[in-house]
């Protein structure tokens, strides 16, 4: 055990150095950019699809992390924003196609520009839904809020199942009869121009790169947010609402911002998912999906971007990868397909158990944000005394410095 621990510490130390960090990001970039291409080259489209799916969940988890991790509000209906984004994207896309057809703009090979045209506005339906639900209920205490958001998620799912306003085609999903999602613009171009030999630049690979770009954009935006005035207001509010409001943080607007900005990423993810898969139905937006995204944030580390990403990757990819590995000839002797599919079946059971264990033993998650760890782990008196000592010494040193000057 000691050797393992020392090893881990050494690895951690290496990654904290400048060289180590560069090496780490280099390896990460290599994995995210080239591994899917390799899989595609090997003809394994399934793995490419899993990579893209992981990306979608990373986007969702990053969005939820704003609400749960930064603002400390538990949202159990987050998938509703994903649904709103997906249905809005699809329906507006159909409208656009109709309009273009009516104006005679659609040529012989209709390419679908609606994904790209709508992408800058993809967050809007999510944000609107976030404000709509957030404004009346954000006054509530945290645990009530969790249940109300859960209720909101269910209302959206039930409304969509019942074909609300005639836009969702009920349980059979979109596109319905007579509606068609044409290949998204660019998809055909990369297929024709970037494929060579046996290597096919497939639809899934195309979408994978779009999703990676969106994830990078999300990381950039959220990091900036975290360091902004709003981000500090979230932290202050999460740690002590009364204290925060007494120094001028408007609790309601701050919470509403968290809700709306979190929902924005749900909307973008939904929009992208809808055009990638080309089919959406109410089943994709059930309560379990919301719980799964909460699981990702909690497991990885609330309030920590690397943690959230790690959580999303672990929860989405690990069961699928094990299943895929067992099916490949490489590992066929080690795990039978039956055993591998059991892993998939047991994942929810394991995640449920993990959530309980994590809350008891490591509530800050695998890769915690330092601040959140301090909040969640009641501080040991000796640690506190040590830190106070360090603080005192630092201040004292500062004093003596100023004396010399």
């Amino acid at each position, binding site marked *: 055990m000691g050797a393992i621990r020392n090893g881990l510490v050494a690895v951690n130390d290496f990654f904290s150095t400048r060289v180590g960090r560069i090496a780490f990001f280099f390896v990460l970039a290599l994995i995210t950019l080239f591994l899917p291409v390799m899989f595609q080259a090997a003809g394994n489209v399934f793995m490419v699809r899993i990579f893209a799916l992981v990306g979608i969940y990373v986007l969702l988890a990053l969005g939820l992390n704003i609400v749960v991790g930064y603002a400390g509000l538990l949202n159990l209906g987050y998938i509703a924003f994903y649904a709103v984004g997906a249905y809005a994207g699809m329906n507006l896309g159909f409208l656009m196609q109709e309009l273009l057809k009516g104006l005679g703009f659609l040529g012989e090979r209709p390419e679908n520009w609606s994904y790209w045209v709508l992408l800058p506005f993809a967050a809007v339906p999510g944000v609107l839904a976030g404000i709509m639900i957030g404004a009346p209920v954000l006054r509530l205490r945290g645990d009530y809020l969790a249940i109300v958001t859960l209720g909101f998620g269910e209302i959206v799912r039930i409304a969509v199942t019942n074909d609300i306003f005639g836009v969702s085609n009920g349980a059979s999903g979109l596109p319905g009869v007579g509606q068609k999602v044409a290949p998204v613009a660019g998809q055909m171009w990369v297929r024709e121009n970037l494929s060579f030999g046996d290597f096919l630049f497939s639809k899934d690979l195309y979408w994978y790169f779009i999703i990676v770009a969106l994830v990078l954009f999300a990381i950039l935006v959220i990091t900036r947010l975290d360091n902004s005035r709003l981000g500090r207001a979230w932290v202050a509010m999460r740690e002590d609402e009364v204290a925060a409001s007494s120094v001028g943080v408007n609790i309601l607007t701050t919470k509403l911002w968290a809700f709306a900005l979190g929902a924005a990423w749900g909307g973008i993810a939904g929009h992208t998912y809808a055009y990638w898969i080309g089919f959406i139905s109410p089943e994709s937006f059930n309560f379990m999906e919301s719980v799964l995204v909460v699981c990702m944030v909690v497991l990885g580390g609330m309030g920590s971007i690397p943690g959230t990403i790690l959580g999303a990757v672990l929860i989405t990819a690990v069961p699928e990868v094990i299943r895929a590995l067992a099916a490949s000839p490489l590992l066929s002797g080690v795990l039978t397909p039956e055993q591998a599919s059991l892993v998939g079946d047991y994942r929810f059971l394991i995640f449920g158990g993990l959530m309980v264990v994590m*809350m008891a033993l490591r509530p800050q998650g695998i890769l915690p944000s330092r601040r959140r760890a301090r909040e969640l782990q009641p501080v040991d008196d000796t640690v506190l005394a040590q830190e106070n000592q360090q603080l005192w010494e630092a201040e004292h040193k500062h004093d003596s410095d100023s004396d010399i000057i």
Partner: protein
Amino acid sequence: MSAELGIIAQQFVNGITLGGMYALLALGYTLVYGILLMINFAHSEMFMFGAYVGLFTLQGLSRIAFFTSSGPALLLLYALTFLIAMIATGILGVVIERFAYRPLRHAPRLAPLISAIGVSLFLQNAALLWISSRSLPFPVLFEVRTFRIGGASISSMQILIIVTTIVLMLVLDSFVSRTRLGKSMRATSQDRDTAGLMGIDINRVIALTFFIGPALGAAAGIFSGMYYGNIKYNMGFIPGIKAFTAAVVGGIGNLRGAMLGGFLIGLLESLAAAYISTGYKDVIAFVVLIIVLIFKPGGLLGESVAEKV
């Protein structure tokens, strides 16, 4: 009596039956909230677990010829089924409290809620994987007779459910208001620390709460199985939310409020199913919940909540 009135009367009977189940389940939420100030998200799984234990007990015991030989023996069979399911579920509740919630008693409020979601996820999937992913038929061993009163009909099953529910509620109410243990429960819910100083064993009171709540939930689960004729691993989710709504409507932490809220939600739901749309009947509870929380977060019988935001 006109047909219109007959429909209303019929929906009233159905609503009271449903409401009884919601009320029993709501009591569990309200008891736990009253003492620990936490939403026991896993409580809906107690409903499911109780139904499964009830089903297996019923199946097992009905193989013994004696139990199906006569009317009184059949009654004994059902009484035993309820007793065993309630005790087993109560024990499960105590175990969950011990391992999933007690370590988090001083943690931030989000922690026990997340832990409870984990427990719920775990139990649901345990039932799915280790029992069945499909719905299992819940047998009815007695002849269900239907009585007509005016324009409405009421079955012997509905009478059984309503009467048993009311008996259980009366027992709980007098237990909490009359006995010494009930008094210690009330004291703990008023002020946990002070109750501890007065010599009440807080851990024992909390464990007791986590026994009574799930036990009542188990009874509701068996009723649900008998009433709808089948049970499934995810049967607890929707009733759980509705029962939580009922607890909030009545004023969370207030036992009589939970009973009132349960019947109200049941009535509202069955009337909505008849007059608005069956597709949206599950939405009613959520809408009611949101409206009540916005306009009267203390509920109908609850005290006004001092802690804001």
